């Protein structure tokens, strides 16, 4: 019958007398004429009765006893924990243990980062392309040295350097040894008096020429761009330091373009250039060194103007100026350009 499905939905509630009066009369009217629904109601009644007559299972007689045991265990645990935290010594011990766990979890995946001043040091673990380039630069250097008028260095004296140059120091190792230790290590190497041209600063230096007598000092700088404080320390180690006391570090996208622009500013502002790499050097992007240094003599006032000019340059992506410079008089400044991949 058409209404059966509709009516059968009410049968369960009808059986439990949970239907309102209107629906009760509707169901009863239908049941008087429909045997199917009458049987359905009967089945539901039987189901309900069967479920109601299911045997109640008694829990085992030792139910309460076992519950007491569990309650006692819980109480002992609570007492132990309360005792633990009421003892100041134990409280400190537990707190420290928890704290060390938290710290362990927090710092498990965090590497020690470098301060801004030694950003370049991070490059010890360089990409394969950069590494290749450094090796290439180093080879250039060897050629220049051996073919130079006052050479005095031959490749046979450089195996250790070669290995050093091409050997990658894992970042993790540097991080664990700490910057200081790594830095001291490079100084020691330099003090052996072997020219190594660790980074491209040396290349730029060589391209300038005329500083051969100071080459050893440049090696003492270990080819790294050091933070200002480290520069000073380095000065103490070698009186004739190749590096100036002040460095302006500039990150650029294209070294050649940036160098041209910077030279133009230097000219415009009448800033005395002590030495500078050739602007046409390595004009092809892939052949570009990773960094270059322009040495100038400058005053604090002019430096401020120069920095303002730098801000206008599109090729410059970031720069880090010296923290403190002499208020009066001119001072030597290294303008270090580092190429950052786009």
């Amino acid at each position, binding site marked *: 019958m058409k209404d059966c499905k509709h009516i*059968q*939905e009410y049968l369960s509630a009808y059986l439990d007398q949970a239907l309102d009066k209107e629906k009760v009369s509707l169901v009863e009217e239908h049941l008087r004429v429909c045997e199917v629904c009458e049987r359905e109601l009967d089945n539901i009644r*039987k189901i309900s009765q069967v*479920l109601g007559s*299911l045997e109640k299972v008694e829990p085992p007689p030792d*139910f309460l006893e076992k*519950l007491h045991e569990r309650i006692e265990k*819980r109480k002992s645990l609570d007492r132990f924990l309360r005792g633990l935290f009421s003892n100041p010594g134990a409280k400190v011990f537990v707190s420290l243990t928890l704290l060390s766990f938290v710290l362990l979890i927090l710092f498990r995946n965090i590497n020690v980062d470098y301060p801004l001043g030694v950003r370049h040091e991070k490059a010890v673990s360089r990409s394969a392309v950069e590494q290749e380039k450094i090796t290439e630069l180093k080879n250039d250097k060897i050629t220049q040295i051996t073919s130079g008028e006052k050479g005095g260095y031959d490749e046979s004296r450089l195996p250790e350097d070669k290995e050093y140059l091409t050997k990658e120091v894992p970042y993790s190792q540097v991080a664990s040894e700490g910057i200081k230790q790594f830095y001291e290590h490079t100084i020691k190497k330099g003090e052996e008096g072997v020219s190594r041209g660790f980074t491209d600063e040396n290349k730029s230096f060589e391209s300038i020429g005329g500083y051969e007598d100071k080459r050893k000092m440049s090696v003492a700088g270990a080819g790294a761009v050091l933070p200002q404080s480290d520069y000073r320390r380095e000065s103490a180690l070698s009186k004739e330091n190749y590096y100036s006391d002040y460095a302006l570090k500039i990150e650029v996208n294209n070294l050649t373009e940036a160098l041209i622009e910077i030279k133009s500013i230097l000219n415009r502002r009448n800033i005395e250039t002590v030495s500078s790499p050739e602007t046409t050097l390595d004009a092809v992007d892939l052949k570009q060194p990773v960094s270059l240094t322009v040495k100038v003599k400058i005053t604090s006032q002019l430096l401020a103007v120069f920095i303002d000019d730098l801000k206008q340059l599109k090729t410059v992506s970031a720069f880090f100026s010296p923290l403190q410079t002499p208020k009066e008089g001119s001072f030597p400044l290294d303008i270090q350009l580092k190429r950052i991949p786009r």
Partner: protein
Amino acid sequence: MSKSSEDNTLIKRFLGGDVAAFDEIVVKYKGLVFNVCLKMLGNYEEALDLSQDIFLKIYGSLKDFRYEAQFSTYLYKIVLNFCRNRLKVLQRRRRKEAFSIDNDLATEDGTLKREFASDNPNPRDVLDGKEKEALILNAINSLNHDYKEAVILRDVEGLKYEEIAGILNIDLGTVKSRLSRARHILKEKLEGIL
């Protein structure tokens, strides 16, 4: 004294430090708790363990009992919550332990074909007249949680629709429809034995 005020007195005595009052509560309600757990879980050991867990919980949380509702309503709520959680755990465990019946069972003495207990009740149960009951319990167990709760509270425990609505926190219409649906499914499953 009404059942409800009797419960409240016991609770107050217990909270006042009379531990024996808690034992009275356990003795009074252990059958209810255990049987609902048994119907919900369909496993004696699990039901027993869960019943103990429930009373342990009540022991620690009676101080939070508000006397606005009946203790039995409060108790049913806890029981059903515990059952739901335990069923989830059991389902996860079952999924983990699932294995293919086609794979032989590796033993120290070689491999064995896997064999399973028949769904048919064993002859002893038939002789005991428990076959029908086993089938009914199986049928209840096959219902989904919502239908199972509704039909146990109504047909096994004999609660009123309003009480069921309060315990399950649903409206009366939902109680009616869940019950109607649950009874219809059970009728389909048990048609042969009624």
